[in-house]
């Protein structure tokens, strides 16, 4: 135990963040998220070796590319903090995307179509929540089943076809800019901010951590466990719905095959950001870092013209390295 470590630090990340006063507290909060070391290392390497990396256009492109996975990963963060898992998000993105597209084609006004997409996502989340809380099923199986069912529905409702050709007012949600800034990235930023407030500043947030950290204790303390879990899965579903809208707008089209495997990337981002699949740990700031690390890696691989066969290998190796730094750092500090 190093002398620098006062008795007050050493939590799983969040609770320091919760106390973060944006001045001096930030340093301490980041100190908790040692994954920041990996993040900085990758950024520095790219900045030094690749001139194009630090250009505004490139940085905006990273943010844009990270916005879909970011939105979905925020929902996944909530779920994982409760020691659950939501494998359905990728399929729900595809399903809500095509449903939104169908709504647009059925001449729904854009705001209503967007709400339809988000609402259907929330409904998928509510289905997950019902099966997990009331029917007492394991989150893994439930959301795996919904993964298959939502994907199937996306094919069934579209007959396998791509839904395309949306009005610009819709496409701009995912593909437009506000001044120089991609709107999708702005939406993601708002989602992150709201989630950060919710998880680290509100009573509901604290209850989510409590339910994930010790469900029985939470129950005995009068926390409404079923309601908390339901909220969490519904948020995750609704954000996947928002993701479907953003993706459909970005690509001016909605495909039933979209976003396959997105759930694994989202979960990876959350876990890279310091969350534990056993619950009670994790933070929105950590997830943000995790998402950006994945975005950085992919951007770097394109910028450096890495041959496609090597891409996957290097992706894996860099994630491994970034998390290794983190875990050695924690080990050194005797926190394990």
């Amino acid at each position, binding site marked *: 135990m190093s002398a620098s470590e006062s008795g007050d630090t050493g939590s799983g990340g969040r609770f320091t963040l919760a106390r973060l006063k944006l001045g001096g507290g930030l340093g301490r909060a980041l100190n908790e998220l040692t994954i920041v070391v990996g993040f900085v290392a990758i950024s520095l390497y790219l900045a030094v070796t690749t001139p194009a990396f630090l250009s505004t256009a490139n940085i905006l492109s990273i943010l844009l590319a990270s916005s879909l996975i970011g939105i979905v990963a925020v929902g996944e963060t909530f779920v994982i903090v409760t020691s659950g898992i939501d494998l359905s998000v990728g399929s729900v993105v595809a399903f809500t995307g095509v449903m939104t597209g169908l709504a647009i084609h059925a001449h729904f006004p854009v705001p209503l179509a967007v709400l339809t997409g988000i609402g259907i996502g929330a409904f998928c989340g509510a289905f997950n929540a019902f099966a997990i809380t009331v029917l007492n099923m394991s989150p893994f199986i439930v959301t795996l089943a919904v993964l298959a069912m939502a994907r199937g529905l996306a094919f069934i409702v579209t007959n396998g076809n791509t839904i395309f050709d949306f009005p610009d007012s819709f496409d701009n949600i995912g593909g437009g800019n506000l001044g120089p800034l991609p709107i999708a990235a702005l939406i993601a930023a708002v989602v992150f901010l709201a989630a950060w407030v919710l998880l680290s500043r509100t009573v509901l947030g604290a209850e989510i951590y409590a339910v994930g950290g010790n469900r029985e204790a939470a129950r005995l303390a009068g926390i409404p466990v079923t309601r908390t879990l339901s909220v969490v899965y519904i948020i995750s579903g609704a954000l996947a719905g928002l993701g479907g809208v953003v993706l459909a707008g970005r690509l*001016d089209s909605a495909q039933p*095959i979209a976003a396959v495997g997105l759930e694994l990337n989202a979960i990876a981002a959350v876990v890279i950001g310091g969350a534990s699949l056993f619950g009670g740990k994790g933070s929105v700031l950590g997830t943000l870092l995790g998402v950006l690390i994945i975005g950085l890696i992919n951007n770097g691989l394109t910028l450096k013209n890495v041959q496609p066969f090597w891409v996957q290998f290097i992706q894996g190796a860099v994630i491994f390295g970034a998390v290794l730094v983190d875990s050695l750092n924690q080990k050194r500090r005797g926190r394990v």
Partner: protein
Amino acid sequence: QQPAVVGYSVSTLANPFFQGMTKGVVTGIKAHPGLTLINTSANGDANTQATQVLDLINQHVAALILNPINANAIVPVVRRANKAHIPVFTLDRGAACGKCQVNFLETDNVALGKEGADFIAGRLKARYGTIKGNVVDLEGLLGTTAGDDRERGFATEFAKLSSANPGLKLVARQAADFDADKGFNITTQLLAAHNDIDAIFNGNDDNAIGAVRAIRQANRFVPIGDPKHIVVIGIDGTEQGLSAIRKGQMDATLSQNPLTMAAQTVNYIEQYLHGDKAGIPAHQFWPHVLLTKDNLDTPEVKQYGLWGDQVAAQ
């Protein structure tokens, strides 16, 4: 003089055909000293592809070769490229915005499916005198253009054939996802349930290999020509597909040539950058051939090119 940078985004490398295409692009670029390549693969995800193309645009490439995952989903970034005055050349699959691309060099997947149905009809006619028998359709990955268009071509033609020939029946239509193991498992189970299957149409050669191996494991293999032989036809002409045809395990495949096709696109880029822009056609079907044991090693086919063999030889 600095070579002009060409950005390339292939939909996926999870399939020999696209590896062939990529090799065609790479060798094509090498043949032009004035061009160099940035080579990316979208791993089958349209959103990833949009991001990669944007990253290529941000690097101010001189031209883009796109093999879109989806013709509609690629449109927004193609328009971005247009705004940045970067010419776009689409390969195998186009962008659904017409003139936004300089050239669209395409495989006619609907025709491939149709010709597959016709091939099977021909073999059955040879066997029974009339077009009749039990046919299995192992389609490709749902939601992909290749899978869906081939299926559409096959299904439309098969419906036509079977309404004219009541003895022709489709006993099963299942998606084998361009995955040999999936093709194997489905065929195994179909063979267990039906002992009178005459032919299997496959969305690509990997599906067909799965079917061939399942027939072997079920001890249902008899040589081509025997009335009990199960006709297997694939699409693409992969190296393993060609080998299976040579061994007489598989009847035929319908092959395009991604190597020459991709090289042609690179030629168009050279032509666009340093020559006669107007001479480049807006749209073109790249020809394909039916390969069977009989024609596989004939000069005409050699002339067209067996990409499966060529890629492996490199």
